[in-house]
């Protein structure tokens, strides 16, 4: 959900911050944060109604470079923190910035949990295939047998396909961008934020310090005989949309092409919107359907005291239920 103010429109620079930046020179994270500033401004958001929630990692520091409310949480836990924020105050726009290790390693259980809930927020995963902040160990996105320069031996664990994982868990909007394709990235972020439900944006991000295999040059295809960027938009005929009216066949057709496109990883790595499912209600809507008063009385704004500062709750009906005589 997005909130716009009539009084004033904010520019990208209003969403940025003068905080001294911790990231290494040439880090892909810069592109991602720039895109976040621009997307917020283009959507006409008010920085006071946006919360950027970070995990722990280089990526998790993103909230410091945002002029919004920033919550730098615990390693692996930004998604449940963000869920609590969104459910308690549904008027807020909530974005999560976290690393691939944070999201799919230590936080994988929450990734599954939040997927089942379709909470209306945007999870942006900084996908650099390594644990940047702890000096380059293998992230769950690094393919088996690869040895980036921080590793003593090649990794003997398999990689997770983040898009497939998000699909299986129930994310209703799934996309992939690249930190050096800012224009596309801004659009993807805007779509993700506007999506009424849970969005997952996998952002490929070179880590020049620890990932010497998948560098900016590699993504640009400079190692290939015929130099052609690996990062390419999804084929034009790929249709990501699923609606409440989609037939079972539509869903299966989409699933088939989703699986195909999300597995392509070689000379071509597709980017764009992989899934846009508008047919499922968000968690906030699910609660509202059952708890009517939640439309007005949210955990963050509800009145809990009377004019004398005493509890305003009337427990009589509950006491009656428990009455013994």
């Amino acid at each position, binding site marked *: 959900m997005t909130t716009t103010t009539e009084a004033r429109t904010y520019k990208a620079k209003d969403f940025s911050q003068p905080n001294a930046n911790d990231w290494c020179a040439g880090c892909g994270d810069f592109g991602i944060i720039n895109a976040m500033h621009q997307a917020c401004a283009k959507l006409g958001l008010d920085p006071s109604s946006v919360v950027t929630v970070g995990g722990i990692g280089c990526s998790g520091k993103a909230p410091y470079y945002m002029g919004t409310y920033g919550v*730098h949480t615990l390693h692996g836990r930004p998604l449940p923190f963000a869920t609590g924020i*969104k459910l308690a105050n549904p008027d807020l726009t909530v974005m999560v910035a976290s690393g691939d290790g944070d999201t799919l390693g230590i936080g994988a259980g929450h990734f599954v949990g939040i997927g089942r809930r379709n909470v209306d927020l945007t999870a942006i995963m900084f996908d650099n295939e390594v644990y940047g902040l702890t000096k380059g160990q293998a992230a769950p996105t690094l393919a088996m047998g690869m040895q980036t320069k921080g590793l003593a031996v090649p990794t003997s664990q398999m990689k997770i396909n983040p898009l497939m994982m998000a699909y299986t868990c129930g994310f209703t909007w799934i996309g992939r961008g690249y930190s050096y394709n800012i224009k596309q990235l801004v659009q993807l972020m805007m779509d993700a934020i506007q999506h009424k439900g849970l969005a997952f944006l996998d952002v490929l991000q070179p880590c020049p310090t620890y990932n010497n295999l998948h560098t900016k040059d590699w993504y640009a295809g400079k190692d290939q005989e015929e130099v052609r960027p690996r990062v390419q938009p999804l084929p034009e005929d790929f249709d990501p949309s699923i609606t409440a009216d989609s037939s079972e066949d539509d869903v299966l057709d989409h699933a088939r092409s989703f699986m195909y496109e999300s597995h392509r990883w070689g000379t071509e790595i597709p980017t764009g919107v992989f899934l846009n499912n508008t047919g499922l209600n968000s968690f906030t809507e699910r609660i509202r359907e059952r708890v009517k008063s939640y439309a007005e009385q949210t955990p963050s704004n509800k009145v809990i005291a009377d004019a004398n500062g005493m509890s305003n709750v009337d427990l009589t009906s509950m*006491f009656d239920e428990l009455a013994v005589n």
Partner: protein
Amino acid sequence: MAAESPNGNGSGHVQDLAWRVGGPQGSGVDTAALIFQRACGIAGLHLFGRREYSSNIMGRHSYYDVRASEMPRASHRDAVDLLTTFEAETLSRHLMALGEGSGVIYRTDDADVELHKITYLDGRYADDLAAYLAERGLPATTGGQLEDAKNRGVRLFKVNIDEIVAQLAEAMGVPPAIAGRARNTLAVAVSTALLDFSRDYVKAAVAKTWPGRQKIIDLNVEAIEQTYNYVDANYDRSDFAISLHGCDSTEKRMIVNGNQAVALGKIAGGIGFQSYYPISPATDESFFLEAHEEYPVTDGGQSNVIMVQTEDEISAVTMAAGAALTGARASTSTSGPGFALMCEAIGWAAINEVPLVITDWQRGAPSTGMPTRSEQGDLRIAATGSHGDFPSIVVASGDVFEAFYDAAECFNYAERYQGIVIHVLDKALSSSSRTVPYLDTDQIGIDRGLIAEPRGEHDEGAFNRFAVTESGVSPRTLLGQQGNAHWCTGCEHTPQGRVTEDPVVREDQIEKRHRKMELALSELSLDEKVKIYGDRDAELTFLSWGSNKGAIIECLDILEAEGIPARFLHVRLIKPFPVDEMTELLSAASPLVIVEANFSGQYAELLRTYTGIAPDHLVLKYNGRPISAEEIHRTVREIRQGDAPARIVLRNPYQ
């Protein structure tokens, strides 16, 4: 150890009956107990109910104690007056709880079963019983046990249940299988008939149990009739001195267990959000909240609590912390294993000064321990809670009243001192229920602490959320407030919430956070820290916390009747530790007897750490069963005789 003779319950005494019903889990023990409790409640009696169960769904042993009395009681009694059984295991397990003058109801079929053939009777239990019986020249069977009970003055009531069911079937014109559905009522009625308790109360209880379901009510009412007739025809009650009668009371009462009391207290205290992961014995609290997610407020409108069942306890605690950042009164509820998973997030909430309430229902530990048995073993982890030094408030409640009011008050503490409040309770309290008058929400004040005003414009730079103040409390911003954007972080931070490792800022912040605890100690009343019962000038001093309260207070009554002056300090505020008050209160204690349901005396350890004071006697129980007044009374006798060791362990092989 067989029970001592029960408190006589004949005429002339103030009524105080201990009734026990047991059976395999899933067989209707809870329904029988419910009907019995309702009947007593309708009769104007006070009730204390205690539920003991196994970590299993079907088949393993469970039992329910109901204490029905004219005076309110807050603990169970070890010595049972009347035991109702429907299979051999219950009979075998509980005969030892019966003493002279008490009675047991059992089925013909169970009168002679080999102990070692009873499926779920633990080997150790059967072996000990067999040895006990062998010493008395009796066989290792329920028959041997019944003989022993008879020799100890227990009155045996053998019942042919099938016969009553057959009579009921005939009277109702239904097949015996249908009549058999009234078995639980029938069980209760055998007891109440033997107790000479008016059948009308039981009938009223049945009507309340199945409101609007006339066919079921008719069957059960007839079951009561048939059972009373059967009892009249088959037993001579003249030498059974235990009876139960209604008393005149018009007070409107409800029956509440600890889980419900906390849930109600949270609602009264303005809870907006609770996340949880299921775990015994905490789940029933969240379950109650879920069942009452929307409720009326006094201005005629509706309010609500948003409940989320999470994927684990880490998610539960961090989700609640997120909700709290927006201004919601948020909490999570768990037991030891879940609490252990929450520890990292507790430190996060503390360093970010997030008002967050964590309810910990302690159970047998460590690890999975004894999931459905009680223990007070989490005090140490609740008091430390996470790595590093940080302020937190730990409150322990001793009964359903305290559970209710404390649950509400914890939110006030959390918001006033902007941090973690850990509310510690235990399994014994969670599943023991008590009749109480309707609780008074008019007494519950709401204190939201210091909240910042929105600055409006966005251009003023980040808000000083963690401003260094004299009291340590900084104006709290709520996520979404116009113009107050700032950062929260688990890293040490500047007043704006930016990460820093600057030595001076670090010192300022850590010191400011801890100043809030000095503030709390200076603001909280003595009653909020520790409550004093009994003779305030007495030297003999009991010190305890949590649900041992009921048993110790009952023991004080017994001691008073015996002319022995004693006082009891029931600690509520575990942390921050009220050093001055405790030191002063304990200066004249002699002997100081600390009572705890754990192995190491976790409160005694804190007391020694903070005050240097050590108990003369540490009375401990860690077999998973709650402490009784009788046990404490016996201990006092030993202490007064001068032959009690410093460490006294309460044991009972037949619990």
